């Protein structure tokens, strides 16, 4: 083992720390990408989707700045369109069943949602099977159908900064419109029982755009921190989750990297946030939710493997670098979420957990 490898080994601890901060922020911010996509259909609200795009825009500025400074080196790959379309749709459909995307499932598992524990275990198993296991052949086959141009700036032959400016402007307009709308309404907050920093960190309701900006900065920091360990990528959830699945079966220490530390950190960070805020509770789902969590978890692993990433790796990170895979995955994930929301939330199959809400009249 060379000295470089030794230092790399120590550096993966930054993955654990960054993951813990990210898990904390996701939990406290109630940030749910599934909700952001779902609300477009169920309540026709763009509030959380706009917040999601804030992350993409903030990260886009940071990533291209890091690239320009030579800290990281972005290289355009190819565009495996067939896998991205099919996998994106499957993933989007599955996250409605699982009750959260990959990241959402990690942080809800840390909050004590047993349904998310089932979904997480099945997601890890599914991702491992489709990335490294017996079903990896289907992933290779579907992702061998590709186009050569991997990203928008190379296809158009323009500097990425033009795209960054357009993205930031578009998201900026959406943010201002939402803030204007909110100025005209009064949203009730929980009464404050804490003060100072503990109120801000473990009680206060964070505005979605503030949470999004913080996540954007964390996502930028992920690039150089991960790069320093030899993992040349930003935030990613599915690859590391698949590695956990393989690692549990083989004990191969080569698989223990920055990404695996990151996802473990998510669990730890959200657990700390939930505990500190009095929001940790073991919550056991009913039979139907359990079955849905299991099927949804497997579907997430399958879809993310085919698409080349989940809502984070693809829809949030690959979009920031203007890769065709990222934007195509985002579109088809949203469509998959919409179809599943129509069937399982808005459809006749189940309105609420009970056929009709159980109302008790008290006075």
């Amino acid at each position, binding site marked *: 083992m060379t000295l470089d490898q030794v230092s790399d080994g120590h550096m993966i601890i930054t993955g654990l720390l960054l993951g813990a901060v990210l898990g904390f922020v996701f*939990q406290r911010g*109630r940030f*749910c990408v599934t*909700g952001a996509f*779902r609300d477009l259909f*169920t*309540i026709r609200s763009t*509030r959380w989707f706009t917040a999601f795009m804030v992350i993409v825009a903030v990260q886009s500025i940071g990533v291209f700045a890091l690239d320009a400074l030579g800290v990281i080196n972005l290289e355009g790959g190819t565009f495996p369109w067939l896998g991205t379309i099919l996998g994106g749709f499957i993933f989007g459909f599955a996250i409605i069943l699982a*009750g959260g995307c990959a990241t959402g499932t990690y942080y*809800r598992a840390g*909050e*004590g*949602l047993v*349904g998310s524990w089932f979904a997480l275990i099945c997601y890890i198993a599914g991702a491992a099977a489709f990335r490294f296991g017996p079903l990896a052949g289907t992933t290779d086959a579907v992702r061998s159908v590709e186009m050569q141009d991997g990203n928008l700036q190379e296809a158009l032959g323009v500097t990425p900064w033009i795209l960054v400016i357009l993205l930031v402007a578009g998201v900026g307009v959406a943010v201002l419109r939402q803030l204007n709308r909110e100025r005209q*309404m*009064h*949203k*009730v*907050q*929980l*009464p404050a029982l804490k003060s100072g920093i503990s109120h801000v960190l473990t009680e206060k*309701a964070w505005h*979605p755009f503030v949470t999004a900006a913080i996540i954007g900065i964390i996502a930028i920091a992920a690039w150089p921190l991960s790069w320093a360990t030899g993992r040349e990528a930003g935030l990613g959830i599915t690859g590391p989750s698949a590695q956990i699945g393989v690692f549990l079966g083989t004990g191969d220490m080569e698989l223990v990297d920055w990404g695996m530390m990151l996802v473990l950190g998510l669990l730890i960070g959200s657990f700390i946030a*939930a505990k500190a805020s*009095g*929001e*940790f*509770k073991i*919550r*056991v*789902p*009913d039979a139907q*939710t359990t079955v849905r969590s299991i099927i949804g978890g497997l579907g997430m692993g399958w879809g993310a493997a085919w698409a080349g990433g989940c809502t984070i790796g693809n829809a949030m990170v690959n979009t920031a670098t203007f890769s065709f895979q990222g934007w195509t995955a985002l579109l088809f994930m949203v469509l998959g979420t919409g179809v599943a929301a129509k069937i399982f*939330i808005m459809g006749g199959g189940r*309105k*609420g*957990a*009970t056929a*009709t*809400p*159980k*109302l*008790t*009249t*008290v*006075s």
Partner: protein
Amino acid sequence: MTQHVLETDGQVCPFPLVEARQAMEQIASGDELIINFDCTQGTDSIPQWAAENGYPVTDFSKRGAAEWSITVRKS
């Protein structure tokens, strides 16, 4: 004025809100709906829904670890 209680503990998002919207259709104008929920995201989505619809919130409190209650008046 009558108060109605909607128990949604154990339900994951977005079902507490889905049921709250249905329950609101069932109750009379001027009545209050007390929604008990233990889905964390509901602490954002339910008061947001009340604000967007102009429903006054007469109580919003934490009942215990990861358990909340919100009272919304149908106006």
